[in-house]
Every structure is written in structure tokens, then in C-alpha cells.
């Protein structure tokens, strides 16, 4: 019982909530960039929140169902069609065997999540079905889906079609997008002027934005406090002795273009980091399109934890709504 891939969309991959536990060996946690959207989609079709679905960026795939199923599409705003008929997003939609799921052009956001009752049942690798393309593991043969692939489905639970997530419980970035950042790590390497301009300036998402990381342009160049570079750090003032990189950490090679590491992060390297996007805002990054205007907002640990609790209570509200 499967889904046949007619068209792959753009870099559409199987993702669940990731494989934590191997970052010390260079294998990132991976999983859906917008975890809230994947959880919501899974809830809608009666799956465990952590079931594997499809993550598609900018352009949706075209899929032929070979069994009756419930499907839900969440995340970015991208009109959904079943056999050509437009359907609502964030809603449990019944699909019959032989019907085709397709998408129109993206309207807002960047990534859609497609959950199917039963979940995409590819083999688990290190406890997860998430595709980690750099390491050629997980998903379908360790890569994005391709036309002709068949995606196996697990056993479906019981869920009714028609349930929907109200607007108030959906989440997309605003304009400009605002990402909250806890300064730290190598923050002290920046001059006071650079520390101020980083938060004062408006940045734009660069075209180099993927599951590994998001690059930003448009703000002023950041200057460094002068020092003799430590042994082993490399000669550029933005270099450090290679260290671990937190998920969400912001590195700025050469002081010019900030890069936020995301779910498929490289686990470490030799660039200083000025701080880290807080956990509550990581999902939002996955919904940023290139050229999106973005502001970084300075927060304290206390504020980061309060935002985290806010996110958790939103998820609780969603769960209560879809129970």
C-alpha cells in the first residue's frame, strides 16, 4: 500500500521529528524544519505526532495514492488539489485510491508538510526516518524523493476527515520576520558598534537557504575586537579553534553574512558565533523565503524560556483542539 511519486516538487524529502543523539559524531538531528506544522499535520490524520511525512520546499510534489487515506497539508500556504479540485490546507482530507494530490504555486511561507494516515513507512535509520542527504541516510535511499519512487505507508489509525486547525493556531513568520536571539558563545568578539548594528539592521534571507542553514544579507559588516589570533584558530578575525555549533547558532564568516544553522547543521567548525536563535523561533526559520526581510531581536534567557513555554502551550491547545 503505497504512494507513487509522479513529480518530486523541489527537494521534497521524508522527515519526522529527527534522530537526536549522534551530533557528537557529526550526524545532525535533522527532521522537519517546521516541527509544529508536521505535528499538526500528523494529528489531523490520526498519526502519532512524530510519524514521518513529506517536507516540500517552495514547490509541491505530485503524488498518486494507491489506497484510500486521509491526508493533511500544513505549514506554508500553497493551494492543495485532489484530482484538480482545490482543497483547504490544515485540514484532514479524504483521498481515494487512484486520486492524485498536487499543488499550486506557493503563496506564503516556504515549506509544506504532507501527512498521510499511517505515515511514510520507510525504514528507520538510527531511530528516525528523516532524510539526511549529506550522509546519504534515512528517507528513500538517503535522498530526496524522485519520480517513480513508491512511498510505503504504515497502518492507519482511526481519524475522521474534515477536522481543521483554526487560523489562530497556525503559525507563519510576520513581515518583517522577527527571530529572537540570545547573544552569547563568542559575542564578546564583536565590537560594541557591531553588537548594536546586528540587532538594529534589517537583513534579508539570501538564496543560500536550506536544511543545513539560512544565510542573511543586507546588514552592515560586523567588526571584531582586535586580538592576536589564538594558536590553531586560523588567521581571519572571525575564526576560532574549531568548536561545536549549536542548532540555531549564528556564525558570521568574515563578519559579512550571518548564517543560522538549522536541523541538518554541520556539527562544528572554525567560525565564531554571536549567539543562538531561541528554540521557540526555530520552526519559523523553515518558513522563510529568500529575500524575506528579517530582524533579529535580542532576548535574555528568561525571555527565551518564557517564549518556549508559550510555544508549548500553543501545542497543548492544538492537541486539545484535535482530540
Amino acid at each position: 500500500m503505497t504512494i507513487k511519486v509522479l513529480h518530486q516538487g523541489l527537494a521534497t524529502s521524508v522527515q519526522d521529528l529527527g534522530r537526536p543523539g549522534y551530533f557528537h559524531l557529526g550526524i545532525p538531528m535533522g527532521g522537519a524544519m517546521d516541527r509544529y506544522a508536521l505535528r499538526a499535520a500528523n494529528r489531523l490524520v490520526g498519526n502519532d505526532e512524530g510519524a514521518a511525512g513529506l517536507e516540500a520546499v517552495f514547490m509541491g510534489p505530485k503524488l498518486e495514492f494507491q489506497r484510500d487515506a486521509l491526508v493533511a497539508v500544513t505549514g506554508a500556504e500553497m493551494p492543495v488539489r485532489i484530482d484538480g479540485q482545490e482543497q483547504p490546507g490544515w485540514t484532514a482530507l479524504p483521498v481515494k485510491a487512484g486520486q492524485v494530490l498536487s499543488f499550486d504555486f506557493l503563496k506564503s511561507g516556504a515549506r509544506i508538510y504532507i501527512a498521510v494516515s499511517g505515515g511514510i513507512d520507510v525504514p528507520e535509520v538510527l531511530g528516525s526516518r528523516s532524510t539526511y542527504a549529506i550522509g546519504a541516510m534515512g528517507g528513500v535511499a538517503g535522498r530526496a524523493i524522485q519520480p517513480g519512487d513508491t512511498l510505503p505507508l504504515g497502518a492507519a489509525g482511526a481519524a475522521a476527515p474534515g477536522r481543521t486547525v483554526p487560523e489562530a493556531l497556525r503559525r507563519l513568520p510576520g513581515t518583517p520576520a522577527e527571530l529572537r536571539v540570545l547573544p552569547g558563545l563568542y559575542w564578546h568578539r564583536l565590537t560594541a558598534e557591531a553588537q548594536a548594528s546586528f540587532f538594529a539592521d534589517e537583513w534579508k534571507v539570501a538564496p543560500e537557504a536550506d536544511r543545513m542553514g539560512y544565510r542573511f544579507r543586507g546588514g552592515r559588516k560586523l567588526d571584531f575586537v582586535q586580538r592576536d589570533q589564538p594558536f590553531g584558530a586560523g588567521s581571519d578575525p572571525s575564526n576560532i579553534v574549531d568548536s561545536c555549533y549549536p542548532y540555531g547558532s549564528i556564525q558570521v564568516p568574515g563578519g559579512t553574512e550571518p548564517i543560522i544553522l538549522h536541523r541538518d547543521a554541520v556539527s562544528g567548525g572554525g567560525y565564531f558565533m554571536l549567539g543562538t536563535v531561541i528554540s521557540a523561533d526555530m520552526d519559523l526559520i523553515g518558513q522563510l523565503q529568500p529575500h524575506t526581510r528579517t530582524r533579529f531581536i535580542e532576548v535574555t534567557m528568561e525571555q527565551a524560556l518564557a517564549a518556549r513555554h508559550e510555544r508549548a502551550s500553543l501545542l497543548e491547545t492544538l492537541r486539545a483542539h484535535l482530540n
Partner: protein
Amino acid sequence: MAARYSFGGDEHLFVECSEEMSLAAFFQSLSISRGVRDSGIRGVTEICPANASLQVKFDPDVIKPEDLLQEVRAIETAAAQAEPVISTRIVEIPVFYNDPWTHETLMRFRERHQEPGGTDLDYAARINGYGAVDDFIAAHAGSPWFVSMVGFVAGLPFMYQMVDRPRQLEVPKYLRPRTDTPKLTVGHGGCFGCIYSVRGAGGYQMFGITPMPIFDPAQKTSYLRDFMVFFRPGDIVKFKAIGRDAYDQAVEEVERGTFAPPIREVTFDLREFQQDIAGYNAKLQGLLHDH
């Protein structure tokens, strides 16, 4: 050395043992990492040792960030009292230096290099004061290296040469990174050696290639059946220069599933090492060949 603590958002604690690289800093980061692991602090989800620092990932819903910081600080203090001794393993890795594959790649990216007229080995030998490439290779393969970090991408070891600082090989990275590097290239950037675990972009100078798989997501390699990544932080590596025939033979053995690198369990004592580096390294090397 008193470590510096900082939070990476609300889920990571960063511990910098030293701004500069040294064996002592690496050893401290490894000791604290092992201490945190052994203490089983509730809420700690991942521990990543790096060259001269470490990162502890935690769930702030389970442990308050400040409480975690205090616990790790206590472990730092205890680690400073502990004997600087670790149980680890030493492995001998064959390297075909100056091989045709990295050579073809480095020629393709020559305009990104400091010295477009020569090879990466020519350049590295010259700036490290070696008259001939063979002498440089002898220095590279002549002393062991500590795996001071595993990461960047899956299974890639950063290695720190176990010699006095003045003898350490140092080479800048490429001026602009390459978009391609053969899998299993033995590279060097700054004071760190590495082995590229997957094909892809890279900025380290390329010296050779090893036939020994170090990352195998399909887990078909005999010694990677239990786990797909070979290296662990704290492993000791000794390179062995081999020629084309030995390389081809090793590749055949890998394909047949009979390739087995020499690996020995070893107890490493930092104090003994520092008292007599050459003697200690000779002893380590002797272990590999059961002298």
C-alpha cells in the same frame, strides 16, 4: 585552565576550555565531557566534545540552565583533580600520499589556492620548512595524532598532531573553498588534520587518500556493522604511507570485506607523554605491531 561558560540559546551549554588549541585543552574538554556523561545529569540529551571546548545539549523543561551550569562547573573542578589518563584505542591508517585522485581534484581548483603553480603537498612542505615533499610526508606519518573532534559532517575526524608545538604542521586553508573533495581524502587546515568522510565541499589542503572506509551508512564494511561511524573523540591515529599497489590491494580487501585496520586498546597518560613525547610515541607505535 578555568573554562568559560556561555549558553547557546535555551538548549545548549557551551564550555570553552581554552581559546587556543593545545593537548592540555583537548584533554580537559574530553575529561569534562566524560564526566558529564558519567554523571547522568537529568535533562542532558547530548554531549559533544570538540578540540578545546565542548557542548552540552539539554532540555530546559527538565533542568534549569543555571542549575546545569553549576553541575558542569562542579564536574570541571573534579576533572581538574582527576588523573589525566584515558582509556582509548590506537589505529593505524594507510595513506596513499600524492595519489592521482586528490591530484586531479587539486588541479581543478588551482585558482583557489595560495600557490597555483605547485601542488598542496609542495606548498605545505615549503611553508613548514621541509626541503622535499617526502620529508614532509615522513613528518605527517611519523608521529601519532589525537582525534580531537568528530564532526562537521558525519564521521569526519579532526586530528591534532601529538608533537611539540614548534614541530606541528600548520597550513592555511584554501583561499576559497573547493566545491569538491574526493571521499577519504586526508587533508590539513590550520593545525588540524582531517579525513573527509563523504565527498563534497572542503577547504583543507589535500595530501593523499586512505582506502579505509570511516563512514558507512549502509553498514556493509566489516568493522562498521555495529555502528556506521568509525571514529570517537580520543582515538589515537597513526598514519602509514603506502604506494599504489598496497592501496589497490587494500581497496580489494575492503570490497571483499576482509580489510581490518590494526587497532589496539591503550591507556594514555598525559603526564608521561609530556615528559618524553618521542619515547611515548615510539611506545604507542610499538603497541600497534605488538613489539
